[in-house]
């Protein structure tokens, strides 16, 4: 991992079109500004973890457990 030290107002560039700037430091919190083109999604990292957890639960599926849902669906349609 690349390590950089920045002061308030200083930024860094990722590639040619993403810019991250340190706006404010308050105790343990850092306020960052992100400038990125409209087609780049920016997301707080911790939002991924609950989704990853649910995905891992879903991957524990046993194929034979699909028979019952299929049966219920067929009845529902009739």
């Amino acid at each position: 991992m690349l390590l950089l030290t920045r002061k308030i107002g200083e930024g860094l560039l990722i590639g040619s079109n993403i810019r991250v700037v340190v706006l404010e430091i308050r105790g343990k919190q850092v306020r960052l500004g992100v400038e990125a083109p409209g087609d780049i999604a920016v997301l707080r990292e911790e939002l991924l973890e609950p989704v990853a957890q649910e995905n891992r639960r879903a991957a524990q599926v046993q194929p034979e457990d699909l028979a019952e849902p299929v049966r219920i669906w067929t009845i529902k349609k009739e």
Partner: protein
Amino acid sequence: MNLDPKEIPPDPASFTVATRNLGQITVREGEVITFSPGLPGWSQFHRYVLIRRPQESPFLWLQCVDNPDLALVVINPAEVVPQYQVAASSAFLKELGVEEPQDLKVLVILTIPPGRPREMTANLAAPLLINLLNRRGRQLVLENPQYSRQHRVFPR
């Protein structure tokens, strides 16, 4: 000329995967869906294929071709919540290269607790979006999802 099936050379654009849940499957390169940067939980695996087994309709399998043990049951969310709406931003759709709404396929992942299929839940909060034209996919993770990550499919 009749060839013994065993002598037919394998299609160079296809390969087989010995999967844990679905047995041996043959995958054509053109069917592969690339999830970049992978699905949350497995960022190292990018290539998946959708498998439709008629006897299991309306359920589908999203099988990872880089990890034979990794397969998820997925469904069209409209089967679960008929008025389901995807809140994908235009930035997200641009990333996928989606230009026309009809090129976008939306699926949600189902969680079936082993041995308790009636407790199946659907992750409506983080749908899978697939661009059918370029076969690029991505799981949508929202800041403030309006749907549940564990939507109970069958009433208690």
